[in-house]
């Protein structure tokens, strides 16, 4: 599973960790995040993320 980085603030979504504070279980791939999920650090939408190099 790819890690994705927020191009606005640099937050990295790690699917192994998920985003439990916002209801995302560990093990959830980025592609399966709900459409209204946003960067937990800066609020940027999913389309502002790209695969981490």
């Amino acid at each position, binding site marked *: 599973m790819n890690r994705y980085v927020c191009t606005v603030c640099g937050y990295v979504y790690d699917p192994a960790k998920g985003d439990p504070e916002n209801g995302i279980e560990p093990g959830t791939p980025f592609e399966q995040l709900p459409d209204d999920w*946003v960067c937990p650090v800066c609020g*940027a939408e999913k389309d502002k993320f790209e695969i981490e190099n």
Partner: protein
Amino acid sequence: MIVQEIKKDVYGIIMNDWDRRLFDELIPLPDGTTYNAYLIKDKKSVLIDTSDPRKTDKFISILKKVSGGKIDYVISNHSEQDHSGSIPAVLKEFSSARVITSDKGASLLNKLLLVPEDKFIRVKDGEEIDIGERKLKFFHTPWVHWPETIITYSPVDKVLFLCDLFGSHLATGSFYASGNDRVYEAAKRYYAEIMMPFRNHIKKHLALIDGLAIDIIAPSHGPVYNNPQFIVNAYKDWVSDNVKNEVVIPYVSMHGSVNTMVDFFVDKLIERGIDAKPFNITVTDIGELAISMVDTATVVLGTPTVLGGPHPSAIYVTYLFKALRPKTRFVSVINSFGWGGNTVKLITDMLPTGDIEILEPVIVNGYPEESDFKLLENLAENILKKHRGLNIT
């Protein structure tokens, strides 16, 4: 300080901070600001938000008088200290009071102000609390402008309390916004500096607000809106995807080359009917620059190359641009260099991915010559074509 009854038993307590000139050690406040709290005296006595710590003592003394010595609940719509900062003092004065907020609000207030966990009543989105003659309803409205923000609605009073959303940094003796022609600009400045990054979140919140019957919009900075449509319509315009036939040109020039190019470029834009807005970064109020970015279709950054890259003040503006996330569609760079460097790439690499199209930059070795002025004119023409493509000319 102004205390005014806005509906029966509903009071606004506005603490003016007339001479504050900087917020977050970042944002200029040419008109000062206010911290607004609200008090509803029902069977339960409810305080909505508090005041900046700069005003705590005066705020508590006023609150004791207006409340008659009874506070049961303190609603925290937003955990930032300019509104929450007097909560510890309120809890000390009114020891049985509980703090109503979201889960995330409780967590932040605990971390930022050391409010004990057992003081909180955590409300979910859409939850209501009965306070006597009224029920207060809470909506989770995250990212205006922190992740924990909520708004409080009193259906009986038709008043919406939404803390920072719709606020303005404007100290004034006028309690209400109606008839105060300084409010629009102050509210737009506030939007540009604080709310613009969260434009798409605000769109959703505006749809929610449209479904509520509202007589008064009660923000926590600036005058109270007794004509709610004024600010709702302004926000609908600002958060829309519509851009204007404008080019904002933040620039810095060390020895005059960039200055000469920007000067020529501005004239070429104006000749084409495009509203050009140059800002010499070294003397610009960044709030003014942020306001200009609310509507503009295009931003062109002018910078010399120094130490192999952009001038540091140009990097600062690029960083702000990235952080503020305006709806700008086109970006370009005007650059003068002496003997090399990687200025344009360093700037464009800082921009977020998404809807911004980078237009061919103008990169000049030294002082501009005739062929360089032609390139600047080409850029103006290219921008005109792009703007025509958006049907905004």
